[in-house]
């Protein structure tokens, strides 16, 4: 489904280059849920921008279904680290945005937007402006907006980073529930080790300077993931493995 093939990306500095990604390769299967975890500055967002088609790699290539990514496309939905809602549009109008650019007639647009607004539980806030919503509600609106155009791939960049711990757990469960019912390929970026293990069938661990993949850990825990599972020894063992991969990285000389 997604193939990242020896991708490199550097940003020019004053009189130097900053290597954000160095020789990154990864493939993601259809309908797989992959999380990418790593310290800040390790190139997670850069990698996601390349998959989204917002940045082009300097070396290597990124492919979706065998064709090279050259720009954003309706097959890939993106949920940004900052909510990136249009503040002058209501929740409904935000969710309808992608449908409008796709030329969906207004009747159908309204029905589809309503479906996804209901799905993320924002029914009572459909006509509210983003400034009146809490962080978790804004994020759910962003999720509804991405879902509405029905992408086969979801790219999520630390979507729950700014919400409180309690809400975060609920949003994770809700995301898995939605995913299990409408399967999509999900690439989910986080810096939270628990979140990475709880959601994924595979955890990709990245390291910084230069940004690279250090380890890919299979999470052989069954779906649906439950609260008991979160407290199980098997989960804890995996969590500890990912933790040490993230926090005990040998620096590259």
């Amino acid at each position, binding site marked *: 489904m997604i193939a990242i093939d020896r991708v490199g990306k550097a940003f020019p500095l004053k009189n130097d280059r900053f290597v954000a990604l160095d020789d990154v390769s990864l493939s993601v299967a259809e309908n797989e849920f992959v999380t990418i975890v790593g310290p800040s500055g390790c190139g997670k967002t850069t990698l996601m921008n390349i998959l*989204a*088609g*917002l940045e082009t790699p300097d070396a290597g290539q990124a492919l979706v279904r065998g064709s090279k990514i050259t*720009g*954003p*496309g*309706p097959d*890939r*939905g*993106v949920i*940004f680290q*900052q909510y*990136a*809602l*249009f*503040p*002058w*549009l209501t929740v409904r109008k935000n969710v309808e*945005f*992608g449908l409008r*650019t*796709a030329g969906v007639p207004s009747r159908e647009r309204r029905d589809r937007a309503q479906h996804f607004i*209901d*799905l*993320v*539980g924002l*029914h009572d*806030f459909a006509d*509210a*402006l*983003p*400034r*009146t*919503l*809490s962080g*978790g*509600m804004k994020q*759910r609106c962003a999720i509804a*907006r991405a879902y509405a*155009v029905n992408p086969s791939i979801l790219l999520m960049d630390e979507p729950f980073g700014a919400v*409180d711990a*309690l*809400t975060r757990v*609920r*949003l994770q*469960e*809700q995301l898995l*529930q*939605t995913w299990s*019912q*409408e399967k999509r390929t999900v690439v989910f970026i986080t810096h939270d080790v628990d979140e990475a293990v709880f959601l994924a069938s595979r955890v990709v661990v990245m390291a910084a300077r230069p940004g690279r993949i250090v380890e890919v850990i299979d999470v052989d825990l069954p779906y649906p993931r439950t609260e008991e599972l979160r407290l199980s020894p098997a989960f804890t063992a995996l969590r500890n493995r990912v933790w040490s991969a993230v926090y005990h990285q040998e620096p590259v000389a």
Partner: protein
Amino acid sequence: MTVVQVGAETTTGSPPTEERRRRGVPKWGWNGLSVVLGIGIWWGFSLAGYDIPAPPEVLKRGGELIADGTLADDVLASLGRVLAGFVLGVALAIPVGFLMGWYGIVRGLIEPWVQFFRTIPPLAIIPLAVVLMGIGETPKIFVIFLASFLACVIATFQGVVGVDKTLINAARVLGAKDGTIFARVVVPASMPFILVGMRVGLGSSWATLVAAELIAAQQGLGYRMQSAQLYYDLPTIFVGLISIGVLGLLMDRVLLFAERRLTNWQERR
């Protein structure tokens, strides 16, 4: 598909109460008191023998000027000039500001001139405008046009440059192309800046108008005060000053109202 309600959340950011009260007296109460006090002090100076007309005298002259239609004609002449210059200035400033923000080349070509003319007070252009354009309406409207254009073009440009990049990216991944991004993201996102620019531009137009009318005019508030000056007609000058102030305030309030209505989506003000 199931809906999982997130119960722990509540809405935040209920609009703050605007009218702050103090000991039960509303804000406009203090404003009213201040106006009354100010007029009292003015009257006091006039009674104390300073060479200024007392309020009743100014009121009487105001009545006369209204009754014979002079004031209405002057106000209309002045407003006409300001609105013509202002509308032309804004109508040109908004597209130019957008082009400057959107295309680096346009910015590179136009910015030096905008920065240069911004340092020249519009009034300093009047002699040149009169020589080149004569003493009709054209030089007056031109100077007002220039004042509002310069104020508004900078604000629009800054608004466009300041548009959050993530919003543009969000639109792109939702399938928007350049035209759509411009119309549905850049324009609304820079609207607050444009409206502030329009307010500054209107203030600057109004300030320029009166001076432009002092030079050469047959009608208008500035002209009326200029001719009153020749006859030491202080009450007429006062009527002119008060009219200019009141009209300027009214126009600013209209734009402020429009601004509030059009940008109430902003997080805070």
